């Protein structure tokens, strides 16, 4: 998700430069398309020579037929969660199956993997995340992803009488479904909202705001105390969009959220909840309650400033604590706050946006596809889930997936409490995964709004235009939610 420091492409560092990339992927295309047949209707991707070991025998303990002693090729995004957890997993996997794992932790997912997808030799498991992730919708459309339904229907490692499917928190399957097929396992359970320092609030005698007016009041007090009210990761308007969209969903209810995901003609325009939400955020800007300069800062810069008590609140997902581990003072006492509600909101204050991040995928053409599927099944065991919580300070989509004996950091702890308080009142937007272009356009509009270059009404207009444009996508009719 947003937990990276390598936004943007760097063509002079290690790895492939842009020109090289295009040339090389074109060169790979040359292998894939033996003649000039790119002008023909449907060039297929050459012969994928079957390499790797033969399939092992399928049994109850080995539902996918993982061959003993094969090879595993694992690529993970090395962002806010690091990649130590994956190394621990691979060691456990190798021990059990006698495989030899090759590990790659990188932020350049696209640069490293696109040529491999095009060449027909992708890895066996990929954590396809970060700013340079290969969009799951694009991969799914290209038929590059293995159907993971078989993992859901396999027996769980913790309790063989149950299916893996029953061990997951609700929403996991829906989120990973593209065009009716479950293709991506979003593994890290993430909650979104504001974050603040328990220590700062205690010192100043501020209490947790539950309504937007109370929120503005705390921001005003902060300003009087000489610090910024709201900080946000201005260079990446993704984060302030979380606030805007959560306000819309809370005020207008789940229907308002679905209207956006389903690209309805009145998703933004003519939707009073949307206008109220944007106006509420704009009020923070107008009243000068933003941390000075926050509009141009990167995520690390603004989060670090917030860790230095230069602002009261910052929006983010629950990867924040792990991402800021080194910059957070010992006694900071990080706390999660659901986005406060506007007057007459349909959802309560406790409602939170919750969803899963870090899509793990198994390519259709993986050499050891059975191994990849088994790897995913193991990830959904309590043992591997606990490993993740310990190494990466975050929760997974496995229900009660963390051993009670494990002590969590304060931010994660308060996030767990918020999840409990929310109960079934959770919601999640799907449009960022479905429509990259629309998401980007709304982000641009938000950047303009925060810099006071456009007004809320203009924001609504631009957001609606982005929705209307996305509605013309031929894929739009497959991506419907109810």
């Amino acid at each position, binding site marked *: 998700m947003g937990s990276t420091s390598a936004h943007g492409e760097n063509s002079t560092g290690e790895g492939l430069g842009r020109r090289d990339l295009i040339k090389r992927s074109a060169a790979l295309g040359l292998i894939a398309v033996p003649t000039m047949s790119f002008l023909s209707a449907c060039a297929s991707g050459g012969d994928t020579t079957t390499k790797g070991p033969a399939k092992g025998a399928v049994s109850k303990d080995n539902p996918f037929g993982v061959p003993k002693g094969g090879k595993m090729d694992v690529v993970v995004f090395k962002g806010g969660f690091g990649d130590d957890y994956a190394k621990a997993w691979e060691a456990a996997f190798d021990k059990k199956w006698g495989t030899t794992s090759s590990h790659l932790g990188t932020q350049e997912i696209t640069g490293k993997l696109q040529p491999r997808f*095009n060449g027909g030799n992708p890895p066996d498991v990929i954590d396809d995340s970060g700013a340079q992730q290969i969009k799951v919708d694009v991969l799914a459309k290209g038929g590059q992803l293995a159907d993971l339904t078989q993992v859901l229907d396999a027996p769980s490692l913790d309790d063989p009488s149950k299916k893996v499917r029953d061990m997951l928190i609700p929403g996991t399957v829906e989120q990973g479904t593209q065009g009716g097929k479950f293709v991506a396992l979003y593994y890290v359970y993430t909650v979104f909202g504001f974050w603040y320092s328990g220590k700062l609030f205690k010192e100043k005698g501020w209490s947790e705001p539950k309504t937007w007016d109370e929120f503005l009041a705390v921001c005003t007090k902060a300003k009087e105390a000489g610090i910024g009210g709201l900080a946000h990761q201005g260079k990446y308007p993704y984060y302030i969009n979380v606030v805007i969209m959560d306000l819309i969903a809370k005020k207008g209810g789940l229907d308002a959220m679905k209207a956006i995901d389903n690209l309805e003609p009145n998703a933004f325009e003519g939707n009073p909840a949307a206008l109220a939400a944007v106006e509420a955020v704009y009020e923070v800007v107008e009243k000068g309650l933003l941390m000075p*300069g926050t509009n141009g800062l990167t995520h690390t810069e603004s989060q670090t400033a917030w860790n230095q008590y230069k602002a009261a609140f910052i929006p983010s997902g629950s990867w924040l604590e792990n991402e800021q581990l080194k910059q957070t003072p010992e006694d900071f006492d990080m706390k999660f706050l659901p986005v406060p509600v506007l007057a007459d909101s349909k959802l309560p204050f406790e409602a939170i946006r919750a969803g899963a991040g870090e899509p793990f995928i198994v390519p259709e053409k993986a050499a050891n596809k059975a191994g990849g599927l088994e790897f995913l099944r193991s990830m959904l065991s309590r043992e591997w889930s606990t490993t993740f919580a310990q190494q990466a300070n975050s929760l997974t989509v496995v229900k009660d997936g963390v051993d009670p004996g494990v002590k969590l950091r304060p931010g994660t702890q308060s996030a767990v409490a918020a999840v409990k308080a929310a109960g079934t009142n959770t919601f999640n937007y799907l449009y960022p995964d479905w429509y990259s272009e629309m998401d980007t356009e709304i982000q641009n509009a938000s950047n303009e709004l925060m810099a006071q*270059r456009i007004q809320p009404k203009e924001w609504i207009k631009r957001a609606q235009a982005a929705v209307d444009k996305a509605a013309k996508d031929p894929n739009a009719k497959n991506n419907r939610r109810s």
Partner: protein
Amino acid sequence: MSHVARGTGRGGFITGFLILPLALYLTFVIWPYIQTFGYSFTNWSGQSPTFRFVGLDNYAALMKDEVFRGALWHNLLLLVFVPVITILLALFFAFMVNAGGRSGAGGVRGVRGSGLYKIVYFFPQVLSLAILAVLFGAVYRSDAGGLLNGFLTRLGLVDPAHPVEWLNEPNLVLWCLLMVVVWHGVGFYLVLFSAAMQSIPKDIYEAALLDGAGRAQTFFKVTLPLLWDSVQTSAVYLGIAAMDMFVLVSTMTSGQFGGGPDHHSEVMATVLMRNFLYFGKSGYACAMGVVMLVLTMILSIVTLRATRRERIEF
């Protein structure tokens, strides 16, 4: 008879040497270009080997793409300003370092300490663009922690509650980037021009000096005409750099592959990359690549033609 035989023999010998590099060049440079051209007529998503032929659709869409047109305009602006500013500054400094000094018996020498200046000026060239992006990111940082903002706040020119968000200001962002390119380039072209100046025979300068030419006259009447070839080449190189700009824009400005705020710093390469890798419209991006290639070629030819002059022998 024997002369002809010897000629073909030598020709065969040379061809033997050239055939391998030529084959490599055709395979790894020219062929990908042709492929890109082919892909630009398809709806290739970039993540799968299957695609469909769509004819000129991509090019038609490109004509209507406001973001791309904006990017093209920014490239053209840079195309004018990057070479002009860089070459003028480089020429000025090179002249001062090599022939600007006034004292001394010979009369033709650089200003005092010119050796040191050359090293100092060349230094930015040693840094990679990625480092520059980080460096200038700190200079342009949008809060009081930025070098420029910190400096201006100290001087009382900027209100600490409203620091200048350099790279987030639509009217400033392109100029901020231009500054970085010029800062990076001047040193290299200074050294290039210095080398060219040093090959100019001293007697010409001495003659000019004896005739009572000042610094300006010496420069315009002697140095510049004799340097014309180097200036011309520099203009082409800088022009190509201005058509690219990818690394700086994508790392320093906001947005997926840069271009922000709201497309105000967009260049063709950033739009191309976003479509190629993020929106899954690689065929469309290939069409942009073809347009860029054509424009760059036209640019090179025009520059070389327009600046052609009588070559001065010395």
